[in-house]
C-alpha cells in the first residue's frame, strides 16, 4: 500500500533523509520511530506530496506521491506533527470546511468521533488547548474513513484516557483493513498498536522489524530496592546485568529474558521495583550501535 524506494531529500544545510526504503502492506499498522530531528516528519511530508524527493520515490497504492498528490489524497487521512488550524472559525466550521473540500457526504462517523473524544466543537480554534486541537486533528484525519491514515506523533498532547480511546479507534479501523503509518519518538506509545516498526536516526533507517522482535531487544532498566544493603550487594553475583548498587538499591538492566529477572529476584526480600523511563536512544539505538560495532 505504501512503498518508499530509496527516498532521499538533502536540505541545503546537509540534513535530510537518505535512502529511506520500506514498504507497508495493506491493513498493517506501521510504527515510525526516531528521536527528534531524525527525519520522521520529512519522510511523511514526502508521502503527502508536500516535498519533491531529491532522489528515489514514494508510492501510495501504486501512485507517485509527488506527481499524483491530489488524487492520492482521496484515500488518505493525515494528522500533521505541528497542529495549526486556520483561524477565524470554530472546530466544527473547520471540520465542515475540510469535509466539504473532500466532498464528504456522510457525517455520522465524524459525529461519533467527536462524541467519543469528548470535546466541544463550538470552541473557537484560537481558544483551544493543545490536547483539544489534537482531537480536532484526529477527527479530521479519520472522519472520512480513508484507506490509509498517516499520523505524525498522534498521541502527543493527549491525556492517558484519551490515548486509550485513540488506540481503540485505531484498532477498530485496523479491523476494517485500514493501513496506518504512525510516527513517534517513544516506543511505548506505539508498541500497543503497531505490527511492525522502522527506526530512523539521522535521516537513515536503522532497522525495520516486527514489534515482538523489537520488544525482545528492548532493554529496560529497573530500580530494585532491597530490604537490606547486604542483599543489594549479593545481587551483583547473580547472572543479572547489574548496572550499579547504592546502599540497598540496585539498578538492573533486562533485555528480553524477564523470567530470569523474576526468578533471580525471588530469593530476595524486595521492597519496591520501579521502571526507569528511557528515551529511544537508550532503549534501542544503543543496541544497534553495539550490533554494528560487533560486526
Amino acid at each position, binding site marked *: 500500500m505504501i512503498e518508499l524506494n530509496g527516498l532521499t531529500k538533502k536540505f541545503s544545510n546537509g540534513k535530510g533523509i537518505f535512502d529511506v526504503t520500506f514498504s507497508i502492506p495493506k491493513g498493517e499498522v506501521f510504527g515510525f520511530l526516531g528521536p527528534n530531528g531524525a527525519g520522521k516528519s520529512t519522510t511523511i511530508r514526502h508521502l503527502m506530496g508536500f516535498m519533491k524527493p531529491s532522489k528515489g520515490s514514494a508510492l501510495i497504492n501504486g501512485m507517485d506521491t509527488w506527481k499524483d498528490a*491530489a488524487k492520492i489524497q*482521496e484515500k488518505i487521512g*493525515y494528522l500533521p506533527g505541528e497542529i495549526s488550524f*486556520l483561524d477565524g472559525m470554530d472546530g466544527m*466550521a473547520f471540520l465542515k*470546511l*475540510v469535509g*466539504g473540500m*473532500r466532498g464528504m457526504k456522510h457525517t455520522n462517523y465524524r459525529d461519533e468521533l467527536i462524541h467519543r473524544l469528548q470535546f466541544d466543537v463550538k470552541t473557537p480554534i484560537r481558544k483551544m488547548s493543545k490536547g483539544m486541537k489534537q482531537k480536532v486533528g484526529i477527527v479530521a484525519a479519520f472522519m472520512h474513513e480513508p484507506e490509509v491514515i498517516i499520523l505524525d506523533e498522534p498521541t502527543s498532547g493527549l491525556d492517558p484516557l484519551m490515548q486509550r480511546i485513540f488506540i481503540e479507534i485505531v484498532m477498530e479501523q485496523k479491523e476494517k483493513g485500514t493501513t496506518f503509518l504512525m510516527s513517534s519518538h517513544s516506543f511505548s506509545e506505539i508498541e500497543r498498536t503497531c505490527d511492525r516498526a522502522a527506526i530512523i536516526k539521522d535521516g537513515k533507517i536503522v532497522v525495520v522489524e516486527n514489534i515482538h522482535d523489537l520488544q525482545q531487544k528492548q532493554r529496560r532498566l529497573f530500580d530494585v530496592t532491597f530490604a537490606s544493603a547486604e542483599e543489594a550487594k549479593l545481587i551483583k553475583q547473580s547472572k543479572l546485568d547489574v548496572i550499579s548498587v547504592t546502599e540497598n538499591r540496585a539498578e538492573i538492566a533486562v533485555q528480553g529474558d524477564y523470567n530470569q529477572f523474576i526468578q533471580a529476584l525471588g530469593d530476595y526480600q524486595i521492597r519496591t521495583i520501579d521502571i526507569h523511563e528511557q528515551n529511544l536512544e537508550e532503549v534501542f539505538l544503543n543496541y544497534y550501535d553495539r550490533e554494528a560495532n560487533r560486526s
Partner: protein
Amino acid sequence: MNITLYAKMLKVHAKSISSYAIGSALYLLLIIGIYPSIADAPGLNELMESMPESFLAAFGMEGGFQHVSDFIAGEYYGLLYVVILSIFCLMTASQLMARHIDRGSMAYILATPNSRKKIAFTQALVLITGLLIIGLTTALAGVIGTEILIEDKPFEAMTFMNVNLVGILLFFVISGYSFLFSCLLNDERQALGLSGLLTIVFYGMDLVGKMSDQLDWMVHLSLFSTFRPVEIARGSVDVWPTATFLFLLGTVLYAVAILIFSKRDLPL
C-alpha cells in the same frame, strides 16, 4: 476552483473586505460633501496658483478643478484610494497563502483531493473578489454621492468610471505581485514586507519623478504612472491601452504565482 474553500475564505475575510469597502466609500462621500464649499470659495484657484507647480503636479492638481469628477479624482484617487487599496491587497495577499504556509495550516488544505493549482487559484479568486467588492463599492458611492450631494455641477460619469476601471486594474497588478510573493515565501511577514517595499518604491519613484525634471525617467519605471486619476477624469487620455496592459500584466503575475506554488517544496 473549490467552492467550499472559496466560500469559507470569503467569510473569514468578509469583515476586512466590508470595512475597507465602507471606509473607502465614506471617505469618498466626505470628499464629495466638501466639494460645494470649496468650489464656491473664491480664493481656491488663487490659492492653487500660489503653490509651486511641481507640488501640484505631484498630486495631479495642476490647472485647478473644473468638475466634481476632477476634484474627486485629485483629492481621493490621488492618494487615499491608493493607500486604502494597497493596504488591503498587501495584507490579504500575504494572509491567503504565506500565512497558511508559515503556520502549517496549509497542510490541512492540501490534505484534501484538490490540486495545488486549484487551491492557489481559489485563494487568488478570494483576493480578486475582495478587490472588486471594494473597488465597485467605491465607484458606486461616487456615482450615487454626486447625484445626491451635488446640484447643477457638471459630473462626468463616464470618465469617473474610467478612473475606477484603471484604479481597479492597477490594484489587480499590485495584488498580483503581492500574491506572487505570498506563494513564493514561507514567511508571512517576509511576503508582506517585500510586496510593501516594492509598492512604496513604485509610489516613491512616481512622486519623485513628477516633482523633479532631472529624475523624470523614474516615472516611467513606476507602475503608478499608469494611473493618472485627474487626467483620466478630464478625459484627456485614452484608457484602453493602459487598461489592457494592466489586465495582461496582472493575469501573468497571478498565473506565475499559481504555477510556482504548484511546483515548490512546502515546509508543512
